[in-house]
């Protein structure tokens, strides 16, 4: 019996997508389409799992209760777009082709593209162990990406959209400015190219990491205990990063999944309790606007950082 995700993706491709591609004269996308469907399925399942786990938690022990949840619905849209639509599309239309092209070019120059399995041949066939090692490396890279996003004014202008949410829930993880998303994808993509993350492993890796990231944004009084909080980022730990007094370069707890990097580089703060979230320095549209109002407000803030610099 094969993997149910693979078989479902295969069924969808065979019975829906390929006949459609054939009708529209787009059969050259046939090979890519299977991967796209497969990881859209992973994304949908991951949204469902996140919903199934986090929603009961948020009802059980919420940090805050709000009179209405209107601001949260925009975050739902962000999540679906990011996990079911944009992420798989990006991965297979851009990342996959870029990886083959760049690594092939490197091979031609006589330099074999690095892979963990190349460095440690014992890892060949050890997919779970390789997966964990790649996850740790990518999490380390993401710590620095996130830290830099808080240091540069232009980057913070984009990233502040993520911090503007005063009603932070597990849906908030994906509320990002599109340009901030592009930077993050390029950052991840380059790192993945450098360390040879397999194309098939990359989306699964990102989706797994992002489930944990969603949980860390949840509106729930949940800590993993003294030791647990030092092994894996909990909602309590990450909430301190989103606190209203921690916006911009005064923040702490930049890690996404593992708190180890914050502990190692002195940015960890385990003392801050369940604080209020938001960014008082940003305009209101960033917090409560529609999807496009938020995107536009983020772009304006981004542009202002350059106009002030040149003024």
């Amino acid at each position: 019996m094969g993997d149910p995700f693979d078989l479902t993706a295969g069924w969808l491709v065979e019975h829906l997508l390929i006949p459609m591609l054939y009708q529209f004269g787009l059969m050259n996308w046939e090979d890519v389409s299977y991967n796209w469907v497969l990881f859209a399925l992973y994304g949908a399942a991951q949204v469902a799992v996140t919903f199934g786990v986090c929603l009961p938690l948020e009802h059980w022990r919420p940090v805050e209760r709000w009179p209405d949840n209107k601001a949260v619905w925009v975050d739902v849209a962000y999540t679906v777009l990011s996990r079911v639509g944009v992420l798989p599309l990006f991965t297979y239309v851009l990342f996959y082709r870029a990886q083959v092209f760049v690594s092939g070019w490197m091979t031609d120059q006589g330099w074999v593209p690095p892979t963990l399995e190349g460095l440690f041949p014992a890892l060949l066939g050890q997919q779970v162990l390789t997966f964990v090692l790649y996850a740790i490396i990518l999490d380390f890279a993401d710590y620095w990406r996130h830290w830099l996003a808080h240091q540069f004014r232009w980057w913070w202008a984009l990233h502040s959209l993520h911090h503007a949410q005063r009603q932070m829930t597990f849906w908030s993880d994906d509320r990002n400015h599109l340009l901030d998303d592009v930077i993050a994808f390029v950052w991840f993509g380059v790192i993945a190219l450098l360390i040879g993350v397999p194309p098939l492993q990359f989306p699964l890796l990102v989706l797994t990491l992002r489930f944990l990231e969603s949980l860390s944004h949840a509106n729930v009084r949940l800590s993993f205990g003294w030791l647990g909080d030092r092994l894996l980022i909990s909602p309590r730990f990450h909430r301190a990063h989103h606190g209203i007094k921690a916006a911009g370069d005064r923040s702490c707890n930049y890690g996404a999944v593992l708190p180890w990097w914050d502990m190692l580089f002195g940015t960890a703060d385990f003392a801050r309790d369940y604080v209020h979230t938001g960014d008082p320095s940003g305009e209101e549209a960033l917090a409560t606007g529609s999807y496009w109002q938020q995107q536009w407000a983020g772009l304006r803030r981004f542009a202002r950082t350059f106009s002030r610099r040149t003024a």
Partner: protein
Amino acid sequence: MRRLFLLLFLSVSSTARADGIAFIVNSRGPSISVIDMATHKEVSRIPTLREPHHLMLTPDGRSLMVGDTAGNQMMYLNPNTGEVQKRMPVADPYQFQFSPDGKLLTVNGLLRNQVDVYDAASMKLLKRFPVVATPSHLAYSPDSVTVFVSLQDSDKLAAFDLRTMTEKWTMPVGKTPAGVLWLNGKVLVADMGTDFIAVVDPATGKVLERVVTGQGAHNMFLSPDRKILWVNNRVGGTTVSMDAATLKPIRTYAIPGGPDDIEFAPGGKIWITRRFAEKVAILDPVTGSFETINVGRSPHGLFLNPGAPSPTAVSSR
């Protein structure tokens, strides 16, 4: 003929019980399933680096080459045991074939838009043809002078002269061309974006005839006796047998799950990879029924070595 000789060589060179061994390349596994041809059971799985697709026996019959596209690696296996002999860096090896005289190896780099010609003995790169776009499958003229390459994204077929290492012509042949085959002095091209195979004049590249086979005509294989042409239709989910001399269809078999590559087993059974079903079909062309073997993700290329000893324990490194 050379292939039959090699299989014969492999048969007599093995001293153990000769039930045979089959290799199925799981493109998105990424791995190679090793199947005991006697029991139809998968006995082991050889891990590969990233994304293997096609495989081919070396002219001396001592190695089975497996091209790993995203891994930029050519892996060499012992065709009798599956033991990994060596790994060699090669850029984007998608489909590849040795010339009939065994002197050249042509490698299509599907995503890197290149056709590489190597000296088969030394694996020295002799010539790189940049192409537009996505070189998919290839076939040689019997005299090894010309190689024909389907260019999937530009709906064309390209012909390269291997004596002068120059392009002869590039001509439109139909939507999304995939499989290429030399047959009876003509070049056949399976046009995956259509329901036909194009019969092409090898001298000019002009399409002489279009033969309807089924929706998404993908790849073609000639039976060992060269009398039957087998065509897999990706969209229609069918395999069609045709008279190789007249190209008249004989029978259509329903093979769901994206039929792709074909190998012929002794006794007349036909092994077909089913990309989306993660299975291999073993078709009995007389009854039209088929049994299946579960393999890994997206099975693509396959190779049967009926003379090899029964694979009970195969090294996976």
